[in-house]
């Protein structure tokens, strides 16, 4: 088909300390790849259109607050400024207490 949208698979590590003793598992989402997609825009697409239960933190969305740091395909990145061109796997920032899914307690940083 001519105008078929290209999609990617986004694998996200999910965990809620209130559920199943906080046991983590990966969940996969199929997301359309748009021109200029970033990790943050992909996450926004998921929470707005696919799964409202997925949690992540963001504020400035221009790479200044460093609040959206997470692990993208094994490397620590800012979600808002990292371009997405293919499948991705997202993990929370290691070394910080986990709040839920991709949200960690950054107050440890102060």
């Amino acid at each position, binding site marked *: 088909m001519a105008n078929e949208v290209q999609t990617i698979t986004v694998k996200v590590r999910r965990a809620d300390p*209130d559920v199943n003793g906080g046991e983590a598992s990966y969940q996969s989402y199929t997301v359309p790849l748009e021109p200029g997609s970033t990790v943050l825009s992909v996450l926004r697409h998921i*929470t707005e259109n696919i799964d409202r239960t997925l949690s992540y933190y963001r504020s400035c969305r*221009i790479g200044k607050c460093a609040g959206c740091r997470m692990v993208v395909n094994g490397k620590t990145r800012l979600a808002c400024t990292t371009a997405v061109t293919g499948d991705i796997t997202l993990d929370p920032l290691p070394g910080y207490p986990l709040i839920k899914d991709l949200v960690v307690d950054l107050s440890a940083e102060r």
Partner: protein
Amino acid sequence: MSTLEKTADEIVITDVLIVGSEGAGARAALEASKRCKSVVVATKGVVGKSGATLTADADIDIDSRSAAELFGLPGDMNDSPEKFADDMCKEGEYLNNQRLVTIHCDEAPMRLKELVDWGARIDKLTHAPGHTYPRGVWVPGTEFARVLTKELKKRDNIKLLEHMMITDLLTDNGRVVGAAGIEITTGKFFVIKAKAVIFCTGGAMRIYPHTTAPDELSGDGLAMAYRVGAKLIDMEFPMFLPYTLIKPDSLNGVDFSYLLSAYVQTQALNRHGERYMAKYDPERLEHSTRDVNSIAAMIEVLDGKGSPAGGTYLSLKHLPDNLIDFSAEWFPSNISHWRYGGFNMKDYLPDLHTQALETSPASHFWNGGVQIDEFCQTGIAGFYACGEGTGSIHGANRVSGNALTMTQVWGPRAGIYAGEYANKAGSGNIDLDQVMSIKERLHAPLKREDGVDPIALRKRIQDVAWKYVGVVREEKGLSKGLEEIAAIRAELDQVYVSNKAKRFNHEWVEALQLENMLDVMEMVAEASLVRKESRGALYRRDFPKTDNINWVKNVVVQKDGDKIATSVHDVDLEKYQPTREIRDYGSKE
């Protein structure tokens, strides 16, 4: 029997509660902590990782002579705080409270000096439009965040509550005695009992679909203040920045392209390829003021001459390729080598040698807000406010760099006076019925099993704000906007949150923001309807002249039952006066 202990998941008791932790909030906390025993800072996000302050690019204004004397910058010795104040009143089109402006300009140097003594690195001195002398001391927003977070940490009597969305002020016989909110990370319902509360919650830029500001700035503070009966002033003047990106979607509101337009000769084009600025400002074209550029773009869009995404085109194609390529090298550091913030813009933009950008005005700053006096009092006992989201300082528009000055001058003042008040005041009573009804209201969307989607409703609100209460306003549209607001309001009690998890439930946060966004939009619409002229950041297409004979006046809004009461007040023009004439909008005096 219900008790407060059973109703609240957590109760926090403090002398001063500060809502908002950034430029204004952090400074307020530092001063308050010297004057009372305990200070709590509650922020919707993370300290130093939320709010507009850290996104600033960023010049902070002090008079040029002080810049030279205090920091050895190449300032102009002919400048003075009085001349700075004069420029503020000119740019504010004489709606500023001149007593507050005088304090603002007098105290700015000392407050910036403190910040520098704490370790903020300053760079150059810039000369932005609207200033007679160079006054913009360059301190990136991230420096404010870094230094202020460090200082907050040093004070033992300041407690930080992060991810704490304050939703309501608590009152006792007309006095503010604390606040309630939800801790987003746990979903817990908090009651914070305080002798004084300071709002440092920033603007409401997120009521619009296009904004340069962070996501969390949905006007919560403005709406909460309104709901407890505070007066809000100059609400008809939200400010817009032209030429921000609308494509790709992921970079909606990023002002890289605006900065481009400041440094190279860009051409703003409508869908017919016309360089439309020739109609609006034939001399300055794209170098006209931010307001005129924004208004022109919006009129083109409204008249059906926009781009597919609802903006206009910004083109560099008329420039030689090698000139475009070289620009990357000499651009100032914040946009050099096609980097902006954390973006490599080349990943996101089309080839500028051949393609134009699609750009749009975006909501950038909130000129009006809670009316304060020189002690940051709001007229309600125990309730103080400072920083963006307060009115009276900037009037109808602000000069570049002066928003940060506002945080650094008025944050400390709020902290001083609220701290002193709290130190003497007794504690008020928390009204259990009030707390119970707040709790019920906050949890209702979680309990509903069906109803209206909060995200769809938020988008509708933003759509209405843009169409009818946006960059260009007129009576017909504003009235239509108010009808739409009423229709959306009728749906608020059906909003339901499908995600039932309490922990970090952003859908719930979205639901809780809706009423705030609506309240703010309604205040903007009502205040705009009252002002039958165009001035500063307000352009009324049906009243396109600036009327200095009849309209050097403030519009004040206040809650009156279910309605918004508006009133018009003369400005005390004790020092700086406009020429009493009716002139074309945007033309210089």
